[in-house]
């Protein structure tokens, strides 16, 4: 989604109202919209602010929108008294490997489906489309049993494997590869390039934007996933951040600032990714939903 494009209807709407000098209705609507937007982001803001308060300030009556003194004690406590460091490593490693696995297997599969002719091509495509509808949540028992048979539960591999099925990335890739003019491939093959070279030197670089968008969204999805890592990580040493912060109890009871600090730490990587790559993230989401951005 480009920013010029998104303002287009807004401009035309403004043009429509050109006959009036000040559009009071529109102004009110803008203020209301901004108000709702602030309300929507407020819980996130509140969590962050709470995490920087001292415990006594947290439970003081009244609504303090800003800590009286920036206090990082909650973060220090979480960092030194929980295994969040290990959970971070687990989250980063599993999310990165899931992303790499999904992107590589999807791009390869999509290239074959889009550019190559081989028996069973249609069947595979139909199976991928059907896979869309499948509720992975229904398979938790048998994923658990299967991973137990492989002795992979409570390990990175066990957390990663069932999350490698992301049919939608194949479909998005295929659409993009379909649109690459045939001449490129023919020219490459004239030069004696094989299919792998064609894929990695031409198709992927030409669709670099979509690759990065899909990679970011896959990473965010993997980082955020809860149910499977929650089941597969049976011990504290293999938990991911989202699982660890809800499953492992601090021996010191409910301490709100610390809970918020752990929440902020869990959400920070994806929030930062989103804020840096806003356009890519929104583009990938729209493509995945089958809407042209």
């Amino acid at each position: 989604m480009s920013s010029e494009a998104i303002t287009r209807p807004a401009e035309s709407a403004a043009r429509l109202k050109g006959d009036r000098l000040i559009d009071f209705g529109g102004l009110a609507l803008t203020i209301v919209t901004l108000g709702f937007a602030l309300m929507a982001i407020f819980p996130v803001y509140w969590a962050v602010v709470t995490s920087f308060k001292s415990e006594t300030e947290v439970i003081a009556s009244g609504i303090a929108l800003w800590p009286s003194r920036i206090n990082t004690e909650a973060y220090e406590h979480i960092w030194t008294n929980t295994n969040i460091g290990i959970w971070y490593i687990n989250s980063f490693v599993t999310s990165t490997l899931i992303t790499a696995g999904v992107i590589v297997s999807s791009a390869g599969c999509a290239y074959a489906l889009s550019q190559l002719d081989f028996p069973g091509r249609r069947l595979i495509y139909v199976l991928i489309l059907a896979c869309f509808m499948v509720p992975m949540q229904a398979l938790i028992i048998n994923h658990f049993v299967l991973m137990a048979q492989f002795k992979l539960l409570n390990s990175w591999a066990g957390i990663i494997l069932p999350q490698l099925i992301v049919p939608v990335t194949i479909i998005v890739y295929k659409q993009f590869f379909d649109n690459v003019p045939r001449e490129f491939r023919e020219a490459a093959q004239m030069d004696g390039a094989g299919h792998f070279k064609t894929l990695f030197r031409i198709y992927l670089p030409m669709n670099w934007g979509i690759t990065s968008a899909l990679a970011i969204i896959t990473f965010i999805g993997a980082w955020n996933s809860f149910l499977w890592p929650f089941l597969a990580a049976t011990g504290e040493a293999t938990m991911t951040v989202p699982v660890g912060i809800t499953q492992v109890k601090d021996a010191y009871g409910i301490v709100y600032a610390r809970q918020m600090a752990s929440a902020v730490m869990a959400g920070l990587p994806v929030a930062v990714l989103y804020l840096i790559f806003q356009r890519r993230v929104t583009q990938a989401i729209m493509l995945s939903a089958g809407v042209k951005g």
Partner: protein
Amino acid sequence: MNKTIKRLALVSTALMALTSVAAAQQTVVWWDFLAGGDGVRMKALIDAFNEEHAGEITIEGTTLEWGTPFYTKLQTSAAIGEGPDIATYHLSRMPLAVDSGTLAEISDEDMASVGLSDDSFTAAAAQAAKVDGTRYGVPFDQHGLILYYNKEMLGEAGMLDEGGMPKGLDGMENFEAALAQFTTDDGKYGLSMPTGDRYRAVYSFFGQQGGTMFDAEAGGFFPTDDDVNKLATATETMKRWVDNGWTPAQIESPAALAQFTSGQAAFFIMGNWEVPTFTDLAAKGELFEWGAVELPVLFDQPAAWSDSHAFVIPANGGKENDPEKRAAVMEVIAWMDKNSLDWAGAGHIPAYNEVRESEGFASMKPQSDYAGFADTAVFDPRTVLAGPAAPLGDAWSNFINPATTGELDPADAAMEMRDDLNSQL
């Protein structure tokens, strides 16, 4: 692909190995469900153990959410051989644990190797740690429901004897009069108690009427109509206190605790595990004079809900037995029991005879004031449905707790609870 998987598995094992301090010494992976004051004391015990055994044994502790999350994780991880080396467990849940194959046997030899035997504990506890004659746990404590009171408020009302102990609370009329007396229009209550824990009081009152909860021969749960009626009566008692405004209808643990510690309620009925919370507050000078005694006898005989913490060794299916690891785990268990005077600081009654009968425990206050509940305690019945995170625990919270707030009729709730449990036998 397969190679990648293997490599990944290797990397993750390597990482797990890194988290333990050194390879030469034994690392004992420990899971518990102890939060709050319990958690702080247990953490101190673990730290002390690790310090004393530096270079030999290190306990690596993880605290999971009490109840269902803990027991689910333990059961599934043991089934796939990924469970901890040692875990805390409720003796009431032993039959269910053994039924699902979660626990490993702890033999007489294991016990003897660290100087323990059945005779180290009360006969009841040693018995409860066994299922069909096989031992699956080592008792650690007994805990139960007790009555905390605000000495200042009771003193002003003339309800303390010369020794500073509450007087005249026994008998339904007397206790309810006291509850009514302390309830005021400006938001003070006679009694504070978390909604989710009310079933413990209901079961205590059921026991005070001499009810039978389970008898396999006589037809299962609440075998006679009389038993069902006693359950309904016990539930109605709690509901009456709610209806009369003597105790808040809906209240969570932290809020209920705060209500008592801020002087908004004269009594607090809860497990003895809150003792350290009050001890610590009092030590900081942030609490009034307080005390704790056995539950008052409101019906025919004294009785209080009770359970025991124990140590267990998960079966970890598919993993080979490592004698050195077993020795280290037994060392941990024995050390904990022998040092359980510190655990008594958390309000619990030590299961280990030597500690319970020691001078040190006898002089602990208020522990010695309520320790008598152990003799008249009502435990969960010995069935595979018993224990927390088990059908009996679910039934309490599905039928009885809601009946105390008026969501269900107490008589209906009692019947439904019986039918629900019997249908699962």
